[in-house]
């Protein structure tokens, strides 16, 4: 019975959830990417890979639940438009609330990361 449950948990993790570190910052990255210009899901996932130099160990699919969440929270909105290839695609754009959220989150991230860097720079005595 134990092995069964563990096996189950194993498949769930492998499915499409990003690692813990990314989980917290994925929202921020997505907001930032969308802030530059309205994009559809595939472009967003490509952009995510590019800007992070493939360092994010997440599957392409993981952006979709995250986008759904951001939209429900009111930070982005979506619209079906014709894409560059002539096929209809769902484009995401930032809302004013999303823009404020982005500013706020970025500042918080800056503060946190500089604090972490400072700690890591301490030389061992």
């Amino acid at each position, binding site marked *: 019975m134990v092995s069964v449950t563990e096996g189950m948990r194993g498949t769930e993790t492998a*499915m*499409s959830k990003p690692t813990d570190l990314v989980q917290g910052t994925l929202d921020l990255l997505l907001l930032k990417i969308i802030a530059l210009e309205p994009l559809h*899901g595939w472009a967003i996932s490509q952009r995510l890979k590019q800007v992070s130099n493939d360092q994010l160990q997440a*599957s*392409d*699919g993981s952006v979709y639940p995250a986008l759904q969440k951001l939209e429900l929270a*009111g930070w982005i*909105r979506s619209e079906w438009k014709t894409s560059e*290839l002539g096929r209809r695609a769902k484009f995401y754009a930032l809302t004013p*609330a999303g823009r404020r959220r982005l500013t706020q989150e970025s500042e918080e991230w800056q503060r946190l990361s500089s604090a972490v860097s400072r700690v890591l720079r301490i030389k061992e005595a």
Partner: protein
Amino acid sequence: MEWRHWVYGIRARLRAILGTKRADQDIDDEISFHVAMQTRENQRRGMDEVDARRSARLTLGGIEQTKEASRDVHPLHGVQTFARDLRYAVRLIRRSPGFSVVMVLTVALGIGANTAIFSIVNAVLLRPLPYAEPARLVRVYLANRAQDITDGRFSVPEVDDWQARSRALTSFSGAISIPMILTGQGEPTEHQVAIVVGDLFATLGVRARIGRALTLEDERQALRNAVISERLWTTRFARDPAILGRTIVMGAMPYTIVGVMPADVRYPESATDLWSPESILPDESLGPRVRSQRQFEALARLAPGATLEQAQNEVNSTAAQFASEFAGTYKGWSAARVIPVRDTIVGGVDTALMVVLAVVGVIMLIACANLANMLLARGTSRAHELATRVALGAGRARILRQLLTESLALGLLGGVLGIALSTWGMRTLLALSADTLPRIEEVRVDRAVIAFGLLLAIATSLLFGILPALRSLPTPQEGLRRGRGTIGGSGRLRGALVVAQVALAVILVIAAGLMGRNLLQLRSVQPGFDPERTLAVTIQYNLAGATGDIGQLLVQRREQILQRIAALPGVVAAGSITRLPLESACSDTLIFLRADGTGSRDGTALRAVNCLISPGYITAMRIPLVRGEPLPERWPDGAPYPFLVSEAAARRFWPGQDPIGQIVRANYGGRATVVGIVGDVRQNGLAKEAPAIVYFNQRTAPRIVTNIVVRTAGDPMLLTESIRAAVRGIDPDQPIRSISTLRDVLSESIARDRFFTLLFALFGAVALVLAAVGVYGVLAYSVGQRAREIGVRIALGAQVGDVLQMVVREGMALVVAGVVVGAIVALAVTRALGTLLHDVSTRDPLTFLVAPGVLLMVALLACYLPARRATRVEAVTALRSE
């Protein structure tokens, strides 16, 4: 800030709620667009089309998985999934009606039994008493180690003193219940009257329904005020609101009614009809108001913040203080006990009821094992369907959820049916319990009971659903590779379930056996009188239009009736007593005897059960006169009252002395002297040791209700008509309350034991059947699965006996394991039955041998049936069917 987010999210949320189909479609389109784009990108990098599409799906992390994860974000998605699963479950239920009906009925029976028992437990044990903060209400008992008394009462001065000295207890009050006769309201009737010391109603924390409660002022000024029960108000005064201020005559004394208590106030007795202050009683009507006259049941409240332990410690030291201050009157009275009122009311049945609740809980577990086994067997045949769905991309969590929804649908269906069944079961139980449980009048199916049933149904569904569901889940690696209709490893799980349910059944059968032995033992106890060929006739004297001295009238009536009955042909002897032996609460008001030999007022107060009888009673009951004279019918005025003592009383009061001729002072009268010693009678019940009894002539305190015992030469029931006629001959309007044989009275006295034994026997039998069905089911299934193997064996020349033996051995191995485990566990847990058993050990060897034996026999039958089927396997057919 937050609300704006919310406003922006509204559109998406509305879409999620209103247009779920569209939202789903959106996600589908979006994902397929993604895959198309990625495929193109991959092709651009030089992959061929098939590889490009495959790689696109891989980097996405699975198409269905991504869709599912995206849908999960939506707030109502869970509900929709559940609704969809539920629809699917209902379809499945309808597709296999036979399977579903058995499942639902099993659940319904389990839930019905559990809910019915719970409705009783809820009313008797769980629902709070109708007093303010009932958990803080306690009874206080004085204890005398030397006399082995742990439930001593309080005297009037003691109630006042303890009120003054207690810190951990507040609002100390006392009450005693006495039968009195109401006159001046048409026909005189007998009622329980509570004599109150202190502020009883403040202690209880109850308010009058109309008017007011008694207060300390009534006591201090000795006002002849009384509060009556709602029952008396209804039956005798037609709920007349003008009752307040009216005067009624109770026990030949006038009282002014100042209030009516609500119907649920039942203290000190459940039948109490009137409360009045003690201070208004004439001096010495209850005996002198001295410290040693301990007749009042003390009631108090835990002070705010005080715990039961603090109160217990305090009463012990208070008792010790008094014992040293009044060394003369407090010999041995140096301890006390504090007991929550609730325990004093339900104390006799709380363990019993909890054990019964546990027993039906175990039945539910056994039923769960059967249900799980049925699901496991079906899971095997559904393995292919599930594997296909996994292969098509359904998440394992998703499938698990759907399987659990299916068992939930079955469970809830059974639960609702079970709750409906439980109302019927509850009524049956109440009829069977024959008024042997306290607070039984409060039993009903209320919201708590329904909630219990539903929660139990849900918990049960998850319990019997989870194992088979987990077991049915194919791993993605296995997928479709596994063949159709086979499943590995579930055989061992099914075996374990059988062992578990057999073990549980053994425990219940052993418990039922112990209860049965106990009942047999009780029935063989000698009551101290001869119950054969004897009738008990209960009469409430008709006093309509009676005037003058009621006591004198009652004595006359009794003598007339006894003479008429004794003169009937076929009657050997007749006598009367106020309360029949063995009847619940038959102990008459306890009285005090001063055993100093001089009849003076000082000296030790002793208690005994006081039976008021006609002299013929002892002969009619065939209670042996051990020594001395029978009770005389009359005695000279001014001489001490003659009375009889039981052997237990003689030993207790005059150890090493001759009781005959001893002079004592009786509580209700003056001096009294022992004229004879009679055999012991189990007056308070067969399960209780014979108490110390004193027998006084009924003339000393006539009562309206009396019991006439009639010993007959032949079948006693043949005489009932002539007895009725004889009574009518004296007064055509004289009703007879009941006529029954003493055998019936004896049998009635163990009704509670019989009730619980019946419950145990019933549940033991159910457990036995369920376990047998479980063994049968698993074995039958296994035979079906192994038909091919058995066919091969038969084809190779195996004999009928070999096959039979093989199958039976497989089943009995599980059964024996279960029986052994169950018997060992039973050794540990039957201790819980301790308070229910009287003369039987909780490890009675005979029961521990016979009960498992019965189970083995039944299980052998359950194994034999599938085994016989196995011997009929046609080798060729079995081989062909694969």
